[in-house]
């Protein structure tokens, strides 16, 4: 696919890296020459310096025969205009813009404003919102390492670390059914010491395994209880950093949780105190030990470090953990740091790019992929694919899951049919228009999975 990416910032660069690796033709446009050069040295892409919404610059970037424009500069307006230019002058089929201002994305205006008659933006993404939602789900499911929504949230994929002395640990997977007769769940993948194990009936879960399972949202907590001692729902949160993410998260959670938010800048702190009603806004540094102690850090359920500075986040998290915070979640943009900190003092490292890229990948993927989530820092992937065709033209329709030859490392984990969740078993038969959730242990095999679900046109 030919894709033009406008903006070589963190989002743009990560996206370019992911897409170039999947053999797309990527051209990145940015006004910053140095950022482009650094990117071109690293990736097999073309770069064009210039303002990304000027027609001439876009032509240079090859917009004329591009399949997709992704505008992710830090200016909403440039992104929107780039989409407009691409639509009006070059008829680019898919246009994605990063739009941050909540006013634009307000449902009151969004539908009327962003359509092909006015502002032709096909997909709007708000990385901050995506990351906020991601963190919010983690807060709402205590004990989970990762929570991913499928089919508009009725089905969820949850990653967690199994702990000994829980009912299912040390048992074979097939006993899952006996443990919970009324609950349908399926283990999609197990990682033991960073190596993927393909889950089968006789696989035994051990202490410390990272288990990904899929179940209807209402059953998630029950299943989690089988794998680790259930944690009490969180109550007291301390959030470090009142930037875009910190603010959005606090706003979303302040009615249900007891939140203290620490912000360094005077002005921003004043702004926060104005906009937030229940949360306590503290002006100060997140790495200030006295401040943390004064605010009873040792009684805190979760400490979230969400500033835009990786180093501050890591340091503040380590400090909070040592001062007694029960759990720390840390925003780490630099993938190298994320690798370094894994398994150290930080309970959950959140990669903002990974969350954002996931939400974009679905649009790039061929066929009817509804959503894509990358897991384990991009190594694995979970896809939601809509099945089309009939018994003749499709390799999956009308076949039982046990009969489908799925590519190595791929698990067909669950189906959603007419809004109902069906956890996949050997005898489950796939029908057309089902949403199938597939877990791919190694991203390399994603192509094979897409091929499996592709409708074979020669039969038409």
């Amino acid at each position, binding site marked *: 696919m*030919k894709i033009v990416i406008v903006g070589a910032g963190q989002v743009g660069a990560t996206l370019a890296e992911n897409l170039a690796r999947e053999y797309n*033709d*990527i*051209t990145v446009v940015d006004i910053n020459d140095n950022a482009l*050069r650094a990117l*071109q040295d*690293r990736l*097999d892409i*073309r770069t064009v310096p210039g303002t990304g919404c000027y027609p001439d610059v876009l032509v240079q970037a*090859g917009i004329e025969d591009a399949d997709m424009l992704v505008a992710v500069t830090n200016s909403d307006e440039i992104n929107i205009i780039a989409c407009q230019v691409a639509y009006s002058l070059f008829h680019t089929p898919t246009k994605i813009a990063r739009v941050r201002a909540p006013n634009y994305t307000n449902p009151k205006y969004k539908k009327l404003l962003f359509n092909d008659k006015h502002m032709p933006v096909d997909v709007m993404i708000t990385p901050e919102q995506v990351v906020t939602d991601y963190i919010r789900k983690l807060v709402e499911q205590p004990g989970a390492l990762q929570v991913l929504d499928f089919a508009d949230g009725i089905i969820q994929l949850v990653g967690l670390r199994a702990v000994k002395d829980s009912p299912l640990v040390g048992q074979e997977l097939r006993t899952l059914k006996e443990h919970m007769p009324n609950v349908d769940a399926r283990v999609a993948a197990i990682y033991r010491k960073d190596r993927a194990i393909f889950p089968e009936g006789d696989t035994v879960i051990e202490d410390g395994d990272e288990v990904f399972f899929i179940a209807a949202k209402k059953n998630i907590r029950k299943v989690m209880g089988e794998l680790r001692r259930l944690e009490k729902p969180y109550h007291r949160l301390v959030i470090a950093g009142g930037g875009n993410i910190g603010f959005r998260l606090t706003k979303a959670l302040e009615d249900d949780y007891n939140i203290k938010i620490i912000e360094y800048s005077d002005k921003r702190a004043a702004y926060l105190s104005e906009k937030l009603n229940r949360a306590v806004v503290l002006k100060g540094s997140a790495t200030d030990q006295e401040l943390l102690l004064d605010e009873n850090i040792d009684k805190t359920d979760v400490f979230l470090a969400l500033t835009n500075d990786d180093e501050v986040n890591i340091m503040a998290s380590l400090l909070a953990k040592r001062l007694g915070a029960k759990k720390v979640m840390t925003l780490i943009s630099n993938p190298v740091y994320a690798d370094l900190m894994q398994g150290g003092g930080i309970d959950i490292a959140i990669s903002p790019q990974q969350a954002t890229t996931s939400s974009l990948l679905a649009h790039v993927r061929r066929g009817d992929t509804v959503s894509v989530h990358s897991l384990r820092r991009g190594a694995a992937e979970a896809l939601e694919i809509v099945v089309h065709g009939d018994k003749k033209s499709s390799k999956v329709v009308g076949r039982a899951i046990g009969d489908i030859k799925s590519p190595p490392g791929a698990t067909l984990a669950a189906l959603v049919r007419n809004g109902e969740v069906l956890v996949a078993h050997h005898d489950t038969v796939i029908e057309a228009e089902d949403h199938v959730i597939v877990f791919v242990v190694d991203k390399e095999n994603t192509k094979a999975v897409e091929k499996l679900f592709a409708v074979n046109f020669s039969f038409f």
Partner: protein
Amino acid sequence: MHLAVTARVLGFLLMIFSLTMLTPIIVAWIYGEQTSQTFLSAFAITLLVGLLFWFPAKNKKGELRTRDGFIVTVFFWLVLSTFGALPLMLSEAPNLSFMDALFESISGLTTTGATVISGLDDLPKSILYYRQQLQWLGGIGIVVIAVAILPMLGVGGMQIYRTETPGPMKDAKLTPRITETANVLFKIYLGLTSICALAYWMAGMNGFDAISHSFSTVAIGGFSTHDASIGFFDSGAIMAICSFFMVVSGLNFALHYHVLHNRKLGYYWADPEARMYIYLLLVGAIITCLYLYYSGTYDWSQSFSQGTFQLISIMTTTGFATTEFNAWPTFLPFFLLFLSFFGACAGSTGGGIKIGRMLILAQQGIREIYRLVHPNALLPIKIRNRKIPERVADAIWAFVGVYLAIFYLMVLLLLASGLDYVTAWSATAAALNNLGPGLGAVATNYADIGSFAKWVLCWGMLLGRLEIFTLLVLFTPTFWKN
């Protein structure tokens, strides 16, 4: 530095290269010659050495970094030139010494076209074909071909592609992916060669000569299958075809791509480098023709045809000959050799300093004059209304400086080896600009100069083809320091 990865790539490329020694066997078979044995053994040796490099490192993963790119390219050229010499050394017919075979092979791969062989007409066809093929492989750059064929190089491909591309702007890509860019270039190259061969054939060459000469024409090489070069055919049509394809191959291949892609011929004229190139060719041709006529060397029609052909052949750094231009009045041979320093356009198969660099240099010269008149003016250097980064301009100054320094160093070395001044000067120019024929003792071939001089010229040709810095960087201590 990743020696293992480098060895893996190098070994693999060598194995691929060994395959090109099989095509002459087909030629030998067609003409019933006894040279198959030679090529087979050369093939076996090359393949084996390639395997030796590749096999121990075949599972070593890792991407090529910028530094590895230099090593791969330079070693590739060195190793390839050496192994390319094998058939010439092993065969009975030219039966060259190692030194001569190496010289011939480097001259072929660098598209110089200087030869140590006389009596080409009597050599087996397969050997002749092999020489032409060497030039063809060297023309667009073996690395470009390799990157086009082997997508496995990935980003590493860019690192080595960059080290081989001629011209000041090394990062320009035609398409987002390097494999595709190389592919596009390779296709244009292949297309030009086929059309050229067809035209030669229609103009009266036999099939073998048509293909052989199309190889060396489009590669801007200058090897011929006859001692008398293009003059052998004594045909105005062939001279015209040859001139046309030399001019076309001397243009930037990226320009060909844009013209083909957008179907607009106007792109050629819109490009300042191409325009300058055409102007220079025109002015040079007019001066040459007029001088030939007024000095009484030829009549009108001869002056025109010989003058134009030789000018194009020398200035694009091809080096085909239809006549002994070294016997022309003294001004002309030096004038033509001087123009060969300008060479062809950046991104073409030609040699020399490249018109694009000269253009920027000239603008800088003019800027200094301007500055004397308007001391407060801000004067960026612009090509196509876009500012050339200072960094590029600096690099060009350094390039030209080092180019000239190396040029005179080589002249001195050749003088030391006992050659006379005209021979030394012209041989150096011919080697460094990848031109081919020189003046004086090296006017027809390089058989009679000593082996020290040949060594010097071998390095000259490689330096010229790899645009000096790529090769020189390997001789600096910084490069090897970890």
